[in-house]
Protein backbone atom coordinates (compact mmCIF):
# COMPACT_ATOMS: atom_id res chain seq x y z
CA UNK A 1 0.00 0.00 0.00
CA UNK A 2 1.31 3.45 -0.90
CA UNK A 3 1.61 5.97 1.95
CA UNK A 4 -0.88 8.77 1.47
CA UNK A 5 -1.82 12.03 3.20
CA UNK A 6 1.21 11.89 5.52
CA UNK A 7 1.12 15.69 5.66
CA UNK A 8 -2.08 15.45 7.68
CA UNK A 9 0.05 14.58 10.71
CA UNK A 10 1.22 18.20 10.89
CA UNK A 11 -2.34 19.30 11.52
CA UNK A 12 -2.41 17.10 14.60
CA UNK A 13 0.61 18.88 16.11
CA UNK A 14 -1.31 21.70 17.88
CA UNK A 15 -3.46 19.11 19.65
CA UNK A 16 -0.35 17.19 20.59
CA UNK A 17 1.18 20.31 22.17
CA UNK A 18 -2.06 21.00 24.05
CA UNK A 19 -2.28 17.42 25.35
CA UNK A 20 1.40 17.52 26.31
CA UNK A 21 0.89 20.56 28.50
CA UNK A 22 -2.42 19.67 30.11
CA UNK A 23 -2.00 15.92 30.49
CA UNK A 24 1.35 14.42 29.60
CA UNK A 25 3.72 16.70 31.52
CA UNK A 26 1.58 16.75 34.72
CA UNK A 27 1.27 12.97 34.43
CA UNK A 28 5.04 12.57 34.16
CA UNK A 29 5.45 14.80 37.20
CA UNK A 30 3.03 12.62 39.14
CA UNK A 31 5.08 9.55 38.20
CA UNK A 32 8.20 11.31 39.50
CA UNK A 33 6.49 12.30 42.74
CA UNK A 34 5.22 8.76 43.32
CA UNK A 35 8.72 7.39 43.98
CA UNK A 36 9.88 10.23 46.22
CA UNK A 37 9.16 11.95 49.51
CA UNK A 38 9.00 15.74 49.77
CA UNK A 39 8.56 18.21 52.60
CA UNK A 40 8.19 21.19 50.28
CA UNK A 41 10.93 23.62 49.20
CA UNK A 42 11.42 21.55 46.06
CA UNK A 43 13.49 19.01 48.01
CA UNK A 44 12.88 15.38 47.11
CA UNK A 45 14.14 12.15 48.66
CA UNK A 46 14.21 8.83 46.83
CA UNK A 47 11.65 6.39 48.23
CA UNK A 48 11.42 3.68 45.57
CA UNK A 49 8.19 1.72 45.33
CA UNK A 50 7.42 2.06 49.08
CA UNK A 51 4.31 4.18 48.58
CA UNK A 52 2.81 1.71 46.14
CA UNK A 53 3.54 -1.22 48.43
CA UNK A 54 2.02 0.51 51.48
CA UNK A 55 -1.01 1.66 49.53
CA UNK A 56 -1.75 -1.76 48.04
CA UNK A 57 -1.79 -3.23 51.54
CA UNK A 58 -3.69 -0.38 53.21
CA UNK A 59 -7.19 -1.00 54.56
CA UNK A 60 -8.06 2.64 54.05
CA UNK A 61 -7.32 2.41 50.33
CA UNK A 62 -9.22 -0.87 49.96
CA UNK A 63 -12.25 0.64 51.69
CA UNK A 64 -12.23 3.78 49.53
CA UNK A 65 -11.84 1.66 46.39
CA UNK A 66 -14.72 -0.59 47.46
CA UNK A 67 -16.96 2.42 48.08
CA UNK A 68 -15.96 3.84 44.70
CA UNK A 69 -16.92 0.66 42.83
CA UNK A 70 -20.15 0.41 44.83
CA UNK A 71 -21.09 3.98 43.96
CA UNK A 72 -20.27 3.60 40.26
CA UNK A 73 -22.09 0.25 40.10
CA UNK A 74 -25.23 1.63 41.71
CA UNK A 75 -25.47 4.75 39.57
CA UNK A 76 -24.79 2.82 36.33
CA UNK A 77 -27.46 0.25 37.26
CA UNK A 78 -29.97 3.06 37.78
CA UNK A 79 -29.01 5.66 35.18
CA UNK A 80 -28.62 3.46 32.10
CA UNK A 81 -32.03 1.66 32.21
CA UNK A 82 -33.77 4.82 33.44
CA UNK A 83 -32.16 6.93 30.71
CA UNK A 84 -33.17 4.44 28.00
CA UNK A 85 -36.72 4.25 29.38
CA UNK A 86 -37.10 8.05 29.40
CA UNK A 87 -35.69 8.30 25.88
CA UNK A 88 -38.20 5.68 24.69
CA UNK A 89 -41.05 7.62 26.31
CA UNK A 90 -40.06 10.96 24.77
CA UNK A 91 -42.02 12.20 21.72
CA UNK A 92 -40.29 11.90 18.32
CA UNK A 93 -42.25 14.65 16.53
CA UNK A 94 -44.01 17.91 17.35
CA UNK A 95 -43.45 20.89 19.65
CA UNK A 96 -42.94 18.75 22.74
CA UNK A 97 -39.64 17.48 21.37
CA UNK A 98 -37.81 20.75 22.05
CA UNK A 99 -39.53 21.20 25.41
CA UNK A 100 -38.43 17.73 26.52
CA UNK A 101 -34.89 18.19 25.22
CA UNK A 102 -34.44 21.53 27.01
CA UNK A 103 -35.90 20.12 30.24
CA UNK A 104 -33.56 17.15 29.99
CA UNK A 105 -30.51 19.32 29.34
CA UNK A 106 -31.16 21.62 32.33
CA UNK A 107 -29.55 19.54 35.12
CA UNK A 108 -26.37 19.15 33.08
CA UNK A 109 -26.01 22.92 32.71
CA UNK A 110 -25.66 23.42 36.46
CA UNK A 111 -22.08 23.59 37.76
CA UNK A 112 -21.04 20.64 39.89
CA UNK A 113 -20.43 22.57 43.11
CA UNK A 114 -23.82 24.27 42.75
CA UNK A 115 -25.46 20.84 42.41
CA UNK A 116 -23.78 19.80 45.66
CA UNK A 117 -24.88 22.96 47.46
CA UNK A 118 -28.44 22.68 46.09
CA UNK A 119 -28.84 19.11 47.30
CA UNK A 120 -27.26 20.00 50.61
CA UNK A 121 -29.92 22.64 51.26
CA UNK A 122 -32.66 20.51 49.69
CA UNK A 123 -32.02 17.67 52.14
CA UNK A 124 -31.47 19.63 55.38
CA UNK A 125 -33.81 17.98 57.93
CA UNK A 126 -35.35 21.18 59.30
CA UNK A 127 -35.47 23.68 56.44
CA UNK A 128 -34.79 21.66 53.25
CA UNK A 129 -37.80 20.80 51.14
CA UNK A 130 -37.03 17.07 50.91
CA UNK A 131 -35.53 16.80 54.41
CA UNK A 132 -38.48 18.54 56.05
CA UNK A 133 -41.00 16.50 54.08
CA UNK A 134 -39.37 13.18 54.98
CA UNK A 135 -38.84 14.01 58.66
CA UNK A 136 -41.91 16.02 59.56
CA UNK A 137 -44.59 14.89 57.11
CA UNK A 138 -43.75 11.24 56.48
CA UNK A 139 -42.08 10.78 59.86
CA UNK A 140 -39.01 9.04 58.43
CA UNK A 141 -35.80 9.61 60.37
CA UNK A 142 -33.68 11.08 57.60
CA UNK A 143 -30.47 12.97 58.31
CA UNK A 144 -27.57 12.54 55.96
CA UNK A 145 -25.09 14.14 58.37
CA UNK A 146 -25.75 11.31 60.86
CA UNK A 147 -26.79 8.24 58.93
CA UNK A 148 -24.45 6.66 56.34
CA UNK A 149 -27.45 5.07 54.58
CA UNK A 150 -29.18 8.46 54.21
CA UNK A 151 -25.92 9.98 52.95
CA UNK A 152 -25.55 7.23 50.35
CA UNK A 153 -29.14 7.55 49.19
CA UNK A 154 -28.63 11.29 48.84
CA UNK A 155 -25.44 11.09 46.79
CA UNK A 156 -26.96 8.43 44.53
CA UNK A 157 -30.16 10.47 44.07
CA UNK A 158 -28.09 13.56 43.32
CA UNK A 159 -25.99 11.81 40.69
CA UNK A 160 -29.06 10.24 39.09
CA UNK A 161 -30.73 13.65 38.97
CA UNK A 162 -27.62 15.31 37.54
CA UNK A 163 -26.52 12.79 34.92
CA UNK A 164 -29.41 10.58 33.78
CA UNK A 165 -30.08 13.33 31.21
CA UNK A 166 -26.82 12.52 29.48
CA UNK A 167 -27.92 8.92 28.95
CA UNK A 168 -31.37 10.15 27.85
CA UNK A 169 -29.99 12.57 25.26
CA UNK A 170 -27.53 10.05 23.83
CA UNK A 171 -30.14 7.26 23.67
CA UNK A 172 -32.64 9.65 22.13
CA UNK A 173 -30.11 10.61 19.44
CA UNK A 174 -29.67 6.89 18.74
CA UNK A 175 -33.42 6.33 18.60
CA UNK A 176 -34.29 9.14 16.19
CA UNK A 177 -31.60 7.97 13.78
CA UNK A 178 -33.48 4.68 13.16
CA UNK A 179 -35.18 4.88 9.73
CA UNK A 180 -38.97 4.44 9.66
CA UNK A 181 -38.60 1.45 7.32
CA UNK A 182 -37.45 -0.71 10.26
CA UNK A 183 -40.62 0.07 12.22
CA UNK A 184 -42.81 -0.52 9.17
CA UNK A 185 -41.19 -3.90 8.58
CA UNK A 186 -41.70 -4.81 12.25
CA UNK A 187 -45.36 -3.79 11.99
CA UNK A 188 -45.91 -5.95 8.93
CA UNK A 189 -44.35 -8.91 10.77
CA UNK A 190 -46.62 -8.20 13.74
CA UNK A 191 -43.70 -7.73 16.15
CA UNK A 192 -44.50 -6.94 19.78
CA UNK A 193 -43.21 -3.78 21.49
CA UNK A 194 -40.63 -5.86 23.31
CA UNK A 195 -39.42 -7.43 20.05
CA UNK A 196 -39.12 -3.99 18.45
CA UNK A 197 -37.06 -2.81 21.42
CA UNK A 198 -34.92 -5.94 21.61
CA UNK A 199 -34.16 -6.44 17.91
CA UNK A 200 -34.38 -2.94 16.41
CA UNK A 201 -33.97 -0.18 18.98
CA UNK A 202 -31.41 -1.76 21.31
CA UNK A 203 -28.98 -2.87 18.55
CA UNK A 204 -29.26 0.56 16.92
CA UNK A 205 -28.52 2.24 20.26
CA UNK A 206 -25.53 0.02 21.00
CA UNK A 207 -22.89 2.51 19.94
CA UNK A 208 -24.35 5.51 21.74
CA UNK A 209 -25.05 3.39 24.82
CA UNK A 210 -21.43 2.24 24.82
CA UNK A 211 -20.34 5.88 24.82
CA UNK A 212 -22.94 6.71 27.51
CA UNK A 213 -21.79 3.91 29.81
CA UNK A 214 -18.14 4.80 29.25
CA UNK A 215 -18.71 8.50 30.00
CA UNK A 216 -20.82 7.72 33.05
CA UNK A 217 -18.29 5.19 34.29
CA UNK A 218 -15.35 7.58 33.97
CA UNK A 219 -17.21 10.58 35.37
CA UNK A 220 -18.69 8.73 38.33
CA UNK A 221 -15.40 6.99 39.04
CA UNK A 222 -13.68 10.38 39.16
CA UNK A 223 -16.50 12.23 40.95
CA UNK A 224 -15.30 14.76 43.51
CA UNK A 225 -16.93 18.18 43.66
CA UNK A 226 -20.57 17.25 44.22
CA UNK A 227 -19.89 14.79 47.01
CA UNK A 228 -17.28 17.03 48.60
CA UNK A 229 -19.81 19.86 48.82
CA UNK A 230 -22.72 17.60 49.83
CA UNK A 231 -21.25 15.31 52.49
CA UNK A 232 -17.53 16.10 52.60
CA UNK A 233 -16.96 12.33 52.69
CA UNK A 234 -18.97 11.84 55.86
CA UNK A 235 -20.57 10.87 58.13
CA UNK A 236 -17.35 9.31 59.36
CA UNK A 237 -15.74 7.96 56.20
CA UNK A 238 -18.90 6.47 54.77
CA UNK A 239 -18.97 8.51 51.55
CA UNK A 240 -15.20 8.99 51.24
CA UNK A 241 -14.75 7.82 47.66
CA UNK A 242 -11.34 7.47 46.03
CA UNK A 243 -11.05 11.05 44.80
CA UNK A 244 -12.07 12.49 48.17
CA UNK A 245 -9.55 10.28 49.96
CA UNK A 246 -6.93 11.30 47.41
CA UNK A 247 -7.46 15.00 48.04
CA UNK A 248 -7.38 14.40 51.81
CA UNK A 249 -3.99 12.72 51.45
CA UNK A 250 -2.57 15.23 48.97
CA UNK A 251 -3.85 18.53 50.34
CA UNK A 252 -5.03 17.73 53.88
CA UNK A 253 -1.98 15.73 54.95
CA UNK A 254 0.38 17.13 52.26
CA UNK A 255 1.66 13.59 51.59
CA UNK A 256 2.44 14.20 47.94
CA UNK A 257 4.33 10.94 47.39
CA UNK A 258 1.58 8.58 48.58
CA UNK A 259 -1.03 10.75 46.83
CA UNK A 260 0.89 10.49 43.56
CA UNK A 261 1.14 6.71 43.92
CA UNK A 262 -2.58 6.55 44.62
CA UNK A 263 -3.36 8.71 41.56
CA UNK A 264 -1.41 6.34 39.35
CA UNK A 265 -3.22 3.26 40.65
CA UNK A 266 -6.51 5.16 40.29
CA UNK A 267 -5.57 6.02 36.70
CA UNK A 268 -4.58 2.42 35.93
CA UNK A 269 -7.97 1.16 37.14
CA UNK A 270 -9.93 3.73 35.11
CA UNK A 271 -7.83 2.96 32.05
CA UNK A 272 -8.23 -0.83 32.34
CA UNK A 273 -11.98 -0.80 32.95
CA UNK A 274 -12.61 1.70 30.13
CA UNK A 275 -10.40 -0.22 27.70
CA UNK A 276 -11.91 -3.60 28.59
CA UNK A 277 -15.43 -2.31 28.28
CA UNK A 278 -14.84 -0.51 24.99
CA UNK A 279 -12.97 -3.45 23.49
CA UNK A 280 -15.63 -5.97 24.49
CA UNK A 281 -18.48 -3.79 23.24
CA UNK A 282 -16.80 -3.04 19.90
CA UNK A 283 -15.49 -6.56 19.41
CA UNK A 284 -18.08 -7.59 16.85
CA UNK A 285 -18.20 -4.26 15.06
CA UNK A 286 -15.04 -4.58 13.00
Amino acid at each position, binding site marked *: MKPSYQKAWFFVLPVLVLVAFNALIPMMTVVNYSVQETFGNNLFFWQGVDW*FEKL*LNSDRFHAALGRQFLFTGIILAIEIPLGVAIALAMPRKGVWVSVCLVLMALPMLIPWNVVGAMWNIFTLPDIGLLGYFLNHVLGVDYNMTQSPLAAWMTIVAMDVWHWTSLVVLLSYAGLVSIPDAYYQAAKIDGASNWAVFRYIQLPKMKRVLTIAILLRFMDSFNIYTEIFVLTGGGPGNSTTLLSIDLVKIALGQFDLGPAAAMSLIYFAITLLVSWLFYTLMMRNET
Partner: protein
Amino acid sequence: MLSWMAWTWPTALIFICIFSAMGVLTVLEIRHPGGDERKGVLGLVTTRGDRLFISLLGSVYIHLAWLGIMGAPLWIPLGISILWGAFAFWKV
Protein backbone atom coordinates in the same frame (compact mmCIF):
# COMPACT_ATOMS: atom_id res chain seq x y z
CA MET B 1 14.05 24.71 34.60
CA LEU B 2 12.76 21.18 35.06
CA SER B 3 13.46 20.96 38.80
CA TRP B 4 9.75 21.30 39.62
CA MET B 5 9.12 18.05 37.77
CA ALA B 6 11.37 16.27 40.28
CA TRP B 7 13.00 13.96 37.74
CA THR B 8 14.77 10.80 38.86
CA TRP B 9 16.85 8.48 36.67
CA PRO B 10 14.58 5.42 37.01
CA THR B 11 11.41 7.33 36.06
CA ALA B 12 13.24 9.13 33.23
CA LEU B 13 14.39 5.74 31.93
CA ILE B 14 10.82 4.42 31.92
CA PHE B 15 9.62 7.38 29.86
CA ILE B 16 12.60 7.15 27.51
CA CYS B 17 11.67 3.49 26.90
CA ILE B 18 7.99 4.27 26.28
CA PHE B 19 8.71 7.18 23.95
CA SER B 20 11.36 5.18 22.06
CA ALA B 21 8.86 2.36 21.59
CA MET B 22 6.36 4.88 20.23
CA GLY B 23 9.07 6.30 17.97
CA VAL B 24 9.89 2.83 16.61
CA LEU B 25 6.20 2.20 15.96
CA THR B 26 5.94 5.55 14.13
CA VAL B 27 8.87 4.66 11.87
CA LEU B 28 7.35 1.20 11.24
CA GLU B 29 4.00 2.80 10.44
CA ILE B 30 5.59 5.16 7.91
CA ARG B 31 7.49 2.28 6.26
CA HIS B 32 4.60 -0.22 6.41
CA PRO B 33 1.30 1.66 6.79
CA GLY B 34 -1.83 -0.12 7.98
CA GLY B 35 -0.63 -1.01 11.48
CA ASP B 36 -0.16 -4.75 10.71
CA GLU B 37 -3.77 -5.43 11.69
CA ARG B 38 -4.67 -9.01 12.62
CA LYS B 39 -6.97 -11.09 14.77
CA GLY B 40 -5.06 -12.54 17.70
CA VAL B 41 -5.57 -15.37 20.20
CA LEU B 42 -7.82 -13.24 22.43
CA GLY B 43 -10.23 -12.79 19.51
CA LEU B 44 -9.37 -9.10 19.29
CA VAL B 45 -8.39 -7.26 16.14
CA THR B 46 -5.19 -5.45 17.10
CA THR B 47 -2.67 -3.17 15.44
CA ARG B 48 0.96 -2.70 16.51
CA GLY B 49 -0.08 0.26 18.67
CA ASP B 50 -2.79 -1.80 20.39
CA ARG B 51 -0.26 -4.49 21.13
CA LEU B 52 2.12 -1.95 22.71
CA PHE B 53 -0.76 -0.60 24.80
CA ILE B 54 -1.74 -4.12 25.92
CA SER B 55 1.89 -4.89 26.81
CA LEU B 56 2.29 -1.71 28.86
CA LEU B 57 -1.06 -1.95 30.64
CA GLY B 58 -0.43 -5.62 31.38
CA SER B 59 3.02 -4.78 32.76
CA VAL B 60 1.52 -2.17 35.09
CA TYR B 61 -0.84 -4.77 36.55
CA ILE B 62 1.84 -7.48 36.76
CA HIS B 63 4.03 -5.10 38.76
CA LEU B 64 1.18 -3.89 40.97
CA ALA B 65 -0.01 -7.43 41.68
CA TRP B 66 3.51 -8.58 42.58
CA LEU B 67 4.02 -5.54 44.79
CA GLY B 68 0.71 -6.08 46.56
CA ILE B 69 1.16 -9.82 47.12
CA MET B 70 4.93 -10.43 47.33
CA GLY B 71 6.46 -6.94 47.81
CA ALA B 72 9.73 -5.46 46.51
CA PRO B 73 12.13 -6.11 44.74
CA LEU B 74 10.54 -6.14 41.33
CA TRP B 75 13.01 -8.02 39.09
CA ILE B 76 10.80 -11.10 38.71
CA PRO B 77 7.68 -9.13 37.60
CA LEU B 78 9.95 -7.18 35.25
CA GLY B 79 10.92 -10.49 33.65
CA ILE B 80 7.28 -11.63 33.51
CA SER B 81 6.33 -8.29 31.93
CA ILE B 82 8.97 -8.67 29.22
CA LEU B 83 7.64 -12.17 28.48
CA TRP B 84 4.09 -10.79 28.44
CA GLY B 85 5.16 -8.04 26.03
CA ALA B 86 6.79 -10.59 23.73
CA PHE B 87 3.64 -12.72 23.87
CA ALA B 88 1.45 -9.68 23.14
CA PHE B 89 3.46 -8.76 20.04
CA TRP B 90 3.68 -12.36 18.91
CA LYS B 91 0.15 -13.69 19.45
CA VAL B 92 -2.37 -11.07 20.66
